[in-house]
């Protein structure tokens, strides 16, 4: 099966559990299981190639210029991890089916689980490090959802937050590291990066990149000092803990260290950082685990400890260390998942995980006892179980590792850690299963149904199988090791055997096991000692740090961000002006290359009007109606200016937009106060004037400067002018640019316009459904109402003129490709025609005759434009490629048919819909339900005998 499917299956499958939720729990789990099984089988179909030593790849170039490609690769290492993720995933799904209670939303759980599974598989199969980072962050997010699955538990929420904060921060650091790595090599493809060991290690940025990447790995894999999040994530349901903390989430960091091993390892920096972090984590985790009373907490710290062990092995930088690490990853995944599931069974049956309240379960739960004991003994490193084999290799590697010039340091610490590891395993067996049967369990424990014990049992079979016959696992482990090592080293020849003879590792192993038993013997005094020792509480420290950060941010942000818009606007303006001034003074200004054009009396008169209107607007802005008229003049002069400077399309657009804008502001002013009171102090007005003048001078200087100079290089407009007719089939270059050359921009723009209109509609709906509605209904108009609501002359005029307006709109639309006009302008013209009906005949009259809702018109416009663009796919061209032809239907003239016209139709519809929806929404605010509309098409008809009742008039308002 293609690698794409293997990665995509869990993601697409994640849609199913939610849908199957109502079909019952079995169906829900069944569909999840099937999805995972399909991915698992898909993975297995690639086994022959992997065994043959091939690297299976799949590739889709997405943004090749940025090095961002969807490339996947499956080699031994990827296969190994994918096998763990999907294989243990299957067992977890089966287990979770029986573990979750009826109160839990199973569809939600399995959706998260599949998302997580997909993200994990994505990490291990990515060939592109940017893609890997995406999946990496996805695991952080989906594990957040999984850990916090029991939303009602505060510990669950806190644990999820902590996990997200720690692993998310690590992920951010890793992004930096990976980008540096990509820059060094010049490629973001892992397969290329892995070939460039010398280049990377010689680079001065190697150490920063290494530290950043390791930050990501250490946070994910809970290495010291980031180990604290993992135990808190135990508040998750047990299947999640078993999955995240045995085979997947925490192994992601380990995986990445293994993946990057060929290029990053072998340097002193790598050795010191990774080995010591691993050693500290291992010892610390083992010691804390022994004294935990919560079964899951014990297992959590033991996971921390074992991850430290694996990290240490990868840190040594030797081929044997890498092989031991791979083997231990496999073994740890099997026994730890089994142990977590057993802990879950105990919790499920005895209703407690507190070791102090358990004991004697051997007789009550014999099946669980066997499973858990075998797994725990394997973890302790007892012969004939797989944990013994890898622990032996660990200790052997430890005896060869010299850290800080002290040959005894690593073996001693490794043995010490193993000793405590053995001790907590024995404690788990001894204090939970052995001992006398008690009579004070919270619930009567008994073995669960096979659905719960079968999954861990399968894992324990593996534990024993590998332990008894290590040669079965040897070829596979060596294959994986070979792909970890890459070209950097050869796979060690060492054989996997139970009996290696009397080697030092065996003595260390014996010391650890015997020591572990002894420690358990003196457990009670040790526990008292432990509880008497003051220890830093990680959660408190973490929360103090978070609270401190929040406080700092608040102290910084709240004074700056105090809700005063005018202050932000002032700060923003000054900052922009200052930045522009800096650029201006540091740059060089060339001599003018253009002649100043002479200005005749008409332009000067226009300029005077514009300036007078602007000045009047500023000085008279307190009178809002007057200022509306003045801004209308400014807009008008701007459109006249556009005509003058050879921009007829712009002039028409500006002019029509001006009309709808003024109508809109008038509608708003209907509700707003008519006057702006004097509030600001003189000082403040002087300050604002200063800012305004500075801004005005700046734009003046900039505009004046470039108006007198030619463009530095040839503008791309030359291309547009040259190709408009040849390529776009239109002579109006502006319109051809809009619908053809830059059609994609226009497409985006009409969508934005549509969204703006919908936003206005939504805001109106919200206002009208809230308390504002009552206020609006009781509002007393602050202006005297007109006696004649719908003046007859105006009504007649607008209705007569309507077809003419539509005709003009149609004409402007059609000629747009070759003459000034087009969809935007036509849309605005038609909108004005429709608005006139609203204004003259009233909102109720117009909307009663409205056949299509404006939302639909917007949607139709965007759809038509989009489908026109998609149409070019069918002839194998990119999105929005346009075509045109000339048609002649006798007896008419020859005329042009262009697909761009269809696109322009979409623009037209979107503009009409958006403008109308906005204006209609405003008008709806003035609507009153009790204002009954007349049955007659007009209010006044001289030929009619029954004049409408006068008293109805003041209650309704025309809009």
């Amino acid at each position, binding site marked *: 099966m293609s690698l794409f499917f293997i990665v995509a299956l869990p993601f697409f499958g994640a849609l199913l559990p939610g849908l199957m939720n109502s079909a019952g729990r079995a169906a829900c789990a069944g569909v999840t299981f099937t999805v995972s099984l399909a991915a698992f089988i898909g993975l297995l179909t690639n086994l022959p190639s992997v065994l043959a030593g091939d690297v299976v790849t799949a590739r889709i170039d997405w943004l090749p210029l940025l090095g961002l490609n969807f490339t996947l690769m499956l080699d031994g290492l990827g296969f190994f991890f994918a096998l763990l993720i999907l294989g243990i995933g299957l067992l977890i799904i089966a287990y979770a089916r029986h573990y979750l209670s009826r109160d839990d939303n199973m569809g939600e759980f399995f959706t998260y689980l599949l998302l997580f599974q997909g993200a994990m598989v994505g990490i291990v199969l990515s060939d592109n490090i940017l893609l890997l980072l995406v999946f990496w962050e996805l695991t952080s997010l989906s594990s957040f959802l999984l850990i916090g699955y029991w939303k009602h538990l505060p510990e669950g929420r806190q644990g999820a937050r902590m996990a997200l904060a720690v692993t998310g921060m690590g992920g951010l650091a890793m992004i930096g590291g990976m980008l540096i790595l990509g820059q060094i090599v010049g490629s973001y493809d892992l397969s290329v990066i892995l070939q460039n060991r010398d280049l990377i290690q010689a680079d001065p940025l190697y150490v920063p990149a290494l530290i950043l990447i390791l930050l990501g790995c250490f946070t994910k894999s809970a290495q010291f000092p980031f180990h604290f999040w993992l135990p808190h994530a135990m508040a998750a349901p047990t299947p999640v803990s078993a999955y995240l903390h045995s085979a997947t989430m925490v192994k992601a960091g380990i995986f990445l260290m293994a993946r990057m091993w060929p290029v990053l390892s072998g340097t002193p920096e790598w050795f010191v950082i990774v080995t010591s972090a691993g050693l500290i984590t291992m010892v610390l985790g083992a010691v804390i685990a022994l004294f935990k009373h919560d079964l899951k907490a014990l297992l959590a710290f033991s996971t921390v400890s074992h991850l430290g062990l694996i990290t240490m092995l990868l840190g040594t930088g030797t081929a044997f260390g890498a092989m031991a690490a791979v083997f231990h990853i496999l073994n740890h995944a099997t026994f730890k998942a089994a142990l977590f599931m057993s802990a879950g069974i105990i919790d499920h049956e005895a209703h407690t995980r507190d070791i102090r309240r358990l004991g004697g379960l051997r007789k009550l739960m014999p099946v669980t006892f066997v499973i858990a004991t075998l797994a725990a003994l394997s973890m302790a490193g007892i012969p004939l179980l797989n944990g013994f084999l890898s622990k032996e290799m660990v200790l052997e590697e430890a005896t060869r590792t010299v850290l800080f010039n002290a040959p005894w340091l690593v073996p001693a610490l490794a043995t010490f850690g193993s000793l405590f590891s053995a001790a907590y395993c024995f404690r788990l067996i001894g204090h939970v299963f052995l001992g006398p049967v008690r009579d004070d369990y919270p619930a009567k424990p008994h073995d669960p149904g096979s659905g719960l014990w079968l999954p861990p049992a399968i894992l324990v079979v593996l534990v024993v199988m590998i332990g008894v016959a290590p040669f079965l696992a040897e070829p596979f482990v060596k294959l994986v090791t070979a792909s970890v090592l890459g070209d950097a080293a050869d796979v060690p020849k060492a054989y996997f055997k139970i009996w290696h003879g009397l080697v030092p590792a065996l003595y260390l192993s014996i010391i650890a096991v015997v020591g572990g038993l002894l420690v358990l013997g003196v457990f009670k005094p040790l526990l008292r000692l432990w509880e008497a020792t003051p220890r830093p509480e990680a959660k408190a420290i973490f929360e103090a740090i978070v609270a401190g950060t929040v406080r700092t941010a608040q102290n910084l942000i709240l004074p700056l961000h*105090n*809700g005063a818009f*005018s*202050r932000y606007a*002032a700060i923003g*303006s000054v900052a922009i002006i200052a930045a522009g001034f800096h650029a201006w003074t540091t740059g060089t200004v060339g001599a003018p290359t*253009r002649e*100043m054009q002479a*200005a005749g009396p008409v*332009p000067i008169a226009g300029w005077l009007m514009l*300036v007078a209107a*602007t*000045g009047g*607007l500023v000085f008279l*802005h307190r009178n809002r109606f007057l*200022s509306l008229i003045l801004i209308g003049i*400014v*807009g008008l002069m*701007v459109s006249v*200016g556009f005509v003058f*400077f*050879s*921009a007829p399309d*712009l002039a028409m*657009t*500006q002019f029509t*937009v001006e009309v709808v*804008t003024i109508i809109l502001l008038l509608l*708003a*002013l209907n509700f*707003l*106060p008519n006057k702006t009171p004097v509030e600001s102090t003189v000082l403040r007005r002087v300050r*604002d004037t200063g*800012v*305004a003048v500075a801004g*005005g001078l700046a*734009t*003046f*200087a900039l505009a004046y400067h*470039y*108006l007198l100079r*030619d463009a530095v290089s040839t*503008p791309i*407009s030359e291309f*547009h*002018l040259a190709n408009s007719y040849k390529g776009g089939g239109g*002579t109006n*270059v*502006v*319109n051809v640019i809009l619908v053809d050359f*830059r059609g994609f921009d226009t497409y985006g*723009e009409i969508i934005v*316009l549509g969204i703006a209109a919908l*936003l206005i509609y939504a*805001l109106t709906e919200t206002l009208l459904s*809230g308390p504002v509605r009552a206020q609006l209904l009781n509002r007393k108009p602050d202006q005297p109402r007109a006696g004649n609501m719908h003046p007859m002359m105006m009504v007649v005029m607008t209705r007569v003129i309507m077809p003419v307006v539509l005709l003009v709109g149609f004409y402007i639309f059609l000629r747009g490709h070759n003459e000034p006009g087009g969809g*935007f302008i036509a849309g*605005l013209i038609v909108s004005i025609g429709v608005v006139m009906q609203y204004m003259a005949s009233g909102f109720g009259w117009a909307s009663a005759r409205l056949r299509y809702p404006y939302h639909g018109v917007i949607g139709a416009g965007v759809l038509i434009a989009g489908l026109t663009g998609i149409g070019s796919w069918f002839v194998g061209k990119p999105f929005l490629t346009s075509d045109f032809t000339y048609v002649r239907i006798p007896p008419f003239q020859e005329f042009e048919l262009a697909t761009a016209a269809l696109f322009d139709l979409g623009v037209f519809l979107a503009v009409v819909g*958006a*403008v109308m929806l906005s204006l209609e929404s405003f008008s709806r605010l003035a609507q009153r339900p009790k204002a009954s509309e007349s049955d007659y098409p007009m209010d006044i008809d001289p030929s009619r005998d029954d004049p409408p009742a006068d008293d109805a008039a003041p209650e309704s308002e025309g809009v």
Partner: protein
Amino acid sequence: MELLVASAIGIMTAGGLYLVLRLRTFPVILGISLLTYAVNVFLFASGRLTIGAAPVLRDNLTVYADPLPQALVLTAIVISFGMTAVVVMIGLGAFLGSNDDHVDDQPEGHEDRAEDKP
């Protein structure tokens, strides 16, 4: 001519900025509209000023105004209408909801919220 256009841009910017810094919603909206004019003309002028040479192809003409800034400004004008409409709606909604058309958070409103907290 260049001086006229540049000074018009400058004056509209200055007026727009002054109005944007006012304390009530309506003048601020007018200020934004004025700034929009200034920005649109500024963008348009980046194609330099050409008189009597509309970018509509004719057989015997070789000089045309720069069409690209025109196309960009055309959509900008329409979009700015949408934006103005949204801002007006927000301002109107705020005024109708609280009977207050200040653009800045008012101090007493802040205290009200503080009192709501237990």
